[in-house]
Each structure stands twice: as structure tokens, then as C-alpha cells.
């Protein structure tokens, strides 16, 4: 069992707290089957030990990184998960507080790994406040992880922008802060009709975002997102793409039943 990154510094009044879905991602990414898949896919050098220019450092992007627990887990345990530690990581979130939290979670977790094994962890490049992967160049992402807002809701809330550090402290403006916090949390849950509107926007760009040789994505879905239909749609992208359900948990009949699908080239 790889240790779960510490998120004790995360303010869960305004940032999605690691929950069953986050832990399902950790369990799936560190499962024997997935580490075998990832290690083979990202093998850094051929068995002879030759340096291979066509297998550079994997770039990991987590979209909507929240507390940062998943990105920290993957980056800090890069050697265990990918069979190589030279992983470079990026995180995005619409919530600037989440960007700050992710940065701290990943940095701390990598530091903890380095105390055991100096070359065991990857490097966090940046966390960016962004809508999905909007500022990320096409074709550079090797591994994309997305735990979306998947709860069915009448609509996806429109993003209101609240600037941290405006000088308005909690005590001076409690009600506004509470409203802001609720809004930020709502953004991390509400997925619109069937809980799939935000995921659909990411899926539309996914074939462009992912690297043509190594691109792989892990996306978490709940039963009401109709995972079967989504997998069918991915199969429609053509023979270059594959999709498989690689992890699940939760109540058998309830809508909260969670699933993780892996989408990859090849």
C-alpha cells in the first residue's frame, strides 16, 4: 500500500475534500493491473539499458485537482506507478484556493518520498487556475486524470470569480465568504444534466489533448453518467482509441456507484 498524501492543510469549507471517488482513483492507479499497464506504456528505456529518445519524461495532467490528493499520489509515487520517477506534473482547477492547496499537497508528498528515496518522486511544474485544460497545448499530455463534478443537477453553475486575498477577512464579511465557499464547493459537485455536462466538454477535446503515442486518460464516472454510453462514444473515435472500465466501487443499486474508465491510444 502506497501512503495517501496528507491533506490536513486543505480548507474543506471551500475545497472538495478527498472522498470515496478520490480514494477509488488512488486504489485504481496503484492497482497491480494499472501499474503494470502504465509501467509498460511509459517504459523509460529498452531492456538493454539504451537511452531512448522516443520515451521522454511522462507529463501528467490532473484536471480539477481540488485538494491535490490524486496528483500528489501519482507524482510522489511515480516510481512505483510508472516504473520511472522522471514524471512532470501539472494541475488545473477553476478554484484558486484548490490550486494553492494542490501545490502544497504535491510538494509535501514528493518531499516525503524523497526522504526515503531521493530519486523516487516526480516534479510538479505548476498548478493553474483554468477552465478544464484550456491553456494546455494539444498533444503533450501523456496521462490525464479527471475526477469531474459528476452529480446530476439542473445546470452547471456559472463560475463567479472570487479573488482570494482581497483583504476582506472572514470576520468582516462572513456572509459573503460563506456564499463564495458554497459556490466553490458547488462547482466541484454539480455536473448538470445526467451529471455529465462538464465531462462531455473535456471528452470533446480529449483526442486533441492526449499525446498521439502514449496518451492515456483516467476518468471517474458515476452510474447516472451512463458510463456504457460514454464508452460507446469513445469507441466511435476510431480504431486508434481504446476504452475499458478499470475500477469501480460503491452501492450496487444506488446512483452513487462509481466507475473509472481508462481511455488510451492503441
Amino acid at each position: 500500500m502506497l501512503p495517501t498524501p496528507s491533506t490536513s492543510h486543505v480548507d474543506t469549507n471551500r475545497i472538495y475534500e478527498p472522498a470515496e471517488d478520490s480514494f477509488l482513483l488512488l486504489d485504481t492507479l496503484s492497482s497491480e493491473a494499472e501499474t503494470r499497464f502504465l509501467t509498460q506504456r511509459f517504459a523509460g528505456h529498452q531492456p538493454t539499458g539504451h537511452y531512448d529518445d522516443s520515451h521522454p519524461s511522462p507529463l501528467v495532467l490532473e484536471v480539477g485537482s481540488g485538494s491535490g490528493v490524486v496528483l500528489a499520489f501519482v507524482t510522489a509515487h511515480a516510481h512505483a506507478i510508472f516504473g520511472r520517477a522522471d514524471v512532470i506534473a501539472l494541475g488545473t482547477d477553476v478554484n484558486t484556493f484548490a490550486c494553492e492547496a494542490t501545490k502544497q499537497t504535491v510538494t509535501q508528498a514528493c518531499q516525503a518520498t524523497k526522504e526515503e528515496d531521493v530519486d523516487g518522486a516526480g516534479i510538479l511544474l505548476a498548478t493553474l487556475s483554468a477552465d478544464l485544460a484550456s491553456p494546455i497545448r494539444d498533444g503533450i499530455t501523456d496521462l490525464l486524470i479527471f475526477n469531474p463534478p459528476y452529480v446530476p443537477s439542473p445546470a452547471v453553475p456559472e463560475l463567479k470569480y472570487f479573488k482570494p486575498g482581497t483583504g476582506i477577512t472572514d470576520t468582516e464579511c462572513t456572509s459573503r465568504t460563506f456564499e463564495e465557499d458554497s459556490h466553490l464547493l458547488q462547482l466541484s459537485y454539480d455536473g448538470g444534466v445526467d451529471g455529465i455536462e462538464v465531462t462531455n466538454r473535456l471528452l470533446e477535446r480529449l483526442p486533441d489533448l492526449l499525446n498521439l503515442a502514449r496518451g492515456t486518460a483516467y476518468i471517474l464516472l458515476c452510474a447516472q453518467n451512463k458510463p456504457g454510453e460514454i464508452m460507446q462514444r469513445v469507441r466511435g473515435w476510431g480504431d486508434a482509441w481504446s476504452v475499458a472500465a478499470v475500477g469501480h466501487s460503491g452501492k450496487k443499486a444506488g446512483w452513487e456507484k462509481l466507475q473509472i474508465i481508462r481511455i488510451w491510444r492503441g
Partner: protein
Amino acid sequence: MKILTVNFLTCAVKACKTSSLSFPLHFKDAELEQSDIEYNASFLRNILPRIDWEAFKITANELGFTTVPSEKPTISAPTTDLSTPDIVNTTSHTEVSHDKVMRDLHTLLLETEVREGKMVCGNCGHEYRIKEGIANFLLPSHLGELSPFILVIFTLHLRLDLQESASCLLSSQANLWKGSWLIGCSLTEHGPSEGYSVKVHVWRRPQMEH
């Protein structure tokens, strides 16, 4: 935000993505800070193939680093295990200078962070703020600040009895332009007999990913 990051970024505006001017984004008023990361030759060697060198040279130059080699350093392939820091242990002159180049790159790519400043798109001119090391790529419609996209502002003075036809006119215009244009107005009442003035804003709808 590490300097290397900008090599993987482009403008968040969808229409800019096809323009070569949107990459790399250009740093403006950047405040830098150094972090301390242990030099790892094989890590750096595996990052190098990922880097768009022309774009990186532009970035480095804008930040005042003028010693970046004009060509991407060629990687001397180790014949033994990758983890052996073979470059460091050699003594020949070229390899020593190669090691210096690699260490300088390590410092610039992985240890140098942009703490404050802006990144500017060369195509649309949009400026993305970097604050406390976190860049903000949320676009104006998200921010509720539409000013960068306002094209026209004009004021109409209306007689009281024309108020209704004016709002009809405005909504028909809005319909005509819907798609890439937005129209909005604010109404000021001047007094019971003096009518209204209407300030009209017309702006381009920010093009985002859908």
C-alpha cells in the same frame, strides 16, 4: 510556476490555438525566485526531448537569460544503466562544459519559478496574471469582466414614449448578432418628463472551449 511550464501552455482562447503567435506565451513584468532541487542528470536528459527549443529560447531571452545554447544539447547516450550519472564523472573538456550547460539548464528549467507577473498571448494580446506562483487562465466571461472585449459604447437619449420601441430595437439587434457578438444596455431615468438615456455596449463574445 516553473519556467518549463510555459513550454506546455498556449492561450486559453479557443480561436488563438490555431495561430502560431499564441505559443509561446510571453512573460511580462515577471518576478522570479529560485527553489532548490537536487540535480538529476537522467531526469533532465529525459525532459529535454519534450522541450520545444525555439519557444524555450524566446522565453529564456524574455526573462533575461541569454546563455541558453542556440541548439538543444545533444544527449550523450549512456551505454550502462540510466541511473549512473556518467556525465558527472568524466573529465574530458567537452564533457565538463556539457555538464555545465546541463546544470545551467536544470537551474533555469526546474529551479527557477515565476512568482508574480503576466503571460501575454501574441495573437489576441490577452494577459494572464500570475499571482503567488499561480497563473490565472480563466477568461473574462468567467471573471465577469468584459472590458477587454468591449468594442462599442454609445449613449442614446430617448423620449419617454420611445422607451418601448428602443428596447424592441435593441433586442432585435441582439438577435441579429447572436453568435459571436453580445449586446447589453443600461438605462438611466432622467425624470418623469425628460425621458431616458440608454448606454449600449456591444462586445465580442469571448471564444472559449465548449
